[in-house]
């Protein structure tokens, strides 16, 4: 195995490992078979596992998630792909009303062990209906676990945990990270859901990030270090379970918190993190909590405009400097 792989290759690798170890794992989605997926994240799976394990579907997002749910309820471990996370709106009934509620409203009679994979996020100039970061949509619904890896090894490790989970997991793959490279995951690599990582240690300010905002926060930490500011970067990895213990411990070390989230400020996941820190970590803080999130407008097409709307390294640096100077 190569020492370094791309995030894109890691998606296929993570899926392949689980398809090999468990015959109940089956993939379905639009163009995921011989075509290898529109983002090539399922490249090679059809050749290795065949059409009984890797199923091409019509453009029918409701059927994709509904079929996955029915199969999950009856002994399979389906991994459904929704091509762009924006299309969650086309199958929202399954994500909001069916998948997360079935176990609860049947009094625990039914188990729904499925994974919904999707390409999430902006920065690629796809415009308002193909660029959104919608992890906050799923955070609004109790009953869904939510993973959003920031690097190739975590893609493989979280994928293993998600597929083996007996709970439904929404798995956000960030479009802006597909070409990024990182160390390959060792054999048998599993990253437990709900365990944040300290991506960089620091003592002056905590930058809490997820998926594409993790490399953004790390780049900001480099710039801050040049100013003599020591930033700690927390990679949440998951929104549910939400590892607030790691966040609160970090704030305990740094006394300042910047939350870096790509979803819009209005209703973004950072609001949940901030409210918990304000409630349970108020005495740890030496400055207000600052959220760096997307502006509350639809995502524009032009790069020059999109960069004004979604979070940037500069924005994170400015927020951190403000808090350190508070």
């Amino acid at each position: 195995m190569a020492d370094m792989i791309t995030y894109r290759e890691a998606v296929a690798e993570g899926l392949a490992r689980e398809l090999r170890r468990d015959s109940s794992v089956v993939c379905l989605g639009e163009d995921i078979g011989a075509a290898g997926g529109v983002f090539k994240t399922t490249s090679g799976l059809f050749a290795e596992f065949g059409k009984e394990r890797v199923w091409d579907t019509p453009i029918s997002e409701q059927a994709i998630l509904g079929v996955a749910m029915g199969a999950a309820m009856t002994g399979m471990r389906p991994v459904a792909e929704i091509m762009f996370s924006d299309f969650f709106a086309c199958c929202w009934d399954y994500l909001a009303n069916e998948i997360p509620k079935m176990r609860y409203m049947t009094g625990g009679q039914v188990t729904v062990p499925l994974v919904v994979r999707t390409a999430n996020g902006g920065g690629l100039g796809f415009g308002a209906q193909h660029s959104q970061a919608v992890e906050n949509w799923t955070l609004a619904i109790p009953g869904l676990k939510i993973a959003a890896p920031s690097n190739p090894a975590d893609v493989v490790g979280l994928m293993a945990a998600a597929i083996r989970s007996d709970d439904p997991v929404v798995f956000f793959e960030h479009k802006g990270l597909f070409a990024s490279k990182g160390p390959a995951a060792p054999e048998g690599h599993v990253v437990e859901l709900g365990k944040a990582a300290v991506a960089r240690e620091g003592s002056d300010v905590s930058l809490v990030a997820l998926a594409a905002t993790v490399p953004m926060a790390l780049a900001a930490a480099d710039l801050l270090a040049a100013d003599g500011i020591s930033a700690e970067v927390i990679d949440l990895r998951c929104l549910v379970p939400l590892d607030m213990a790691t966040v609160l411990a970090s704030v305990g070390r740094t006394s300042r918190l910047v939350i870096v989230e790509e979803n819009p400020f209005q209703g973004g996941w950072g609001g949940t993190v901030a409210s918990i820190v304000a409630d349970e970590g108020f005495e740890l803080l030496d400055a207000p909590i600052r959220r760096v999130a997307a502006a509350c407008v639809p995502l524009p097409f032009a790069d020059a405009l999109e960069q004004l709307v979604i979070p940037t390294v500069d924005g994170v640096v400015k927020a951190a400097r403000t808090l350190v100077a508070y």
Partner: protein
Amino acid sequence: MTAVDSGAAVVGADELLGLYEQMAVIRRTEKAAHDLFLAGLVKGTTHLAAGHEAVAVGASAALRPDDYVFATYRGHHHAMARGATPAECLAELMSKGTGLCKAKGGSMHLTKASAGMLGSYAIVGAHLPLAAGAAWSARLRGSGQVAVAFFGDGATNIGAFHEALNLSAVWALPVLFICENNLYMEYTPIGEVTAVANPAADRAPGYGIPAEVIDGNDVVVVKDAVHRAAELARSGGGPTVIEALTYRHFGHSRTDPGAYRPAEEVERWMQRDPLELARARLQVHGVPGESVTAADERAARIVAEAVAEAKAAPGPDPHDAFTDVWADGGSAWRT
């Protein structure tokens, strides 16, 4: 209607008497649910299936015990036809801890997974893709099971119906789509909102799926049609659409009296009550009237005992408000 025959080629006398009793139990349970609602002992809402009994009982009689059934929020009859007891259904409606779903589902979500009754769904049409998924699973596991989605005529105008039919046909899934066409989409005649005469069956050819319109009030006809469709599905022949014509005896929900239905129409359908049709067939079979009366008496006793049992049952365990979100039994979402 043509002259009644015994239907003995499909259902023998003893079996038919048993199916009659099942229908009688469902009828009386629905009546009890109605009365308990009016007495304030059932909260929320109910969508009673009195009048639809033959669809559930006839279909169940044609299915294997390990086949899967998915129903709608008008689904009490399907839960009971698959083996849920009147007591556990009524207890669920009455918010009792002994209810089918520990009082966490209610009337619209009756589920008995251990009997293959994989839920009652309150978002119109949502469960058709789920049934397709269960059928896909059966195919992948080579189990020979079939899955059945029961739905109302109103569901034929929602996207999930069409997505499910297309995918099921393309993948040749062992799934049956059984429409209980009771002529009304809630309060609106289905013909006023649908461009074809048979809302389910007329759409099926567009997906390359065979379809049949049947008398959904005749338990023998239903069993026969479902049996044939299930055999086709098990042999790799893919899905079938069955449109079973039937009629609600109550309104759409709760205390809706169904005043929008012409009296003449109601009268005509009441004469085609599934219990009456089954009685006529039993008579042709030569089953003595006392046997039918005894079945009615057993049904009455079962339901009376169920009502008493549900009334006496304890309320839900407060702890259960916070269980069953996750597979570990709990609801923790953060550290």
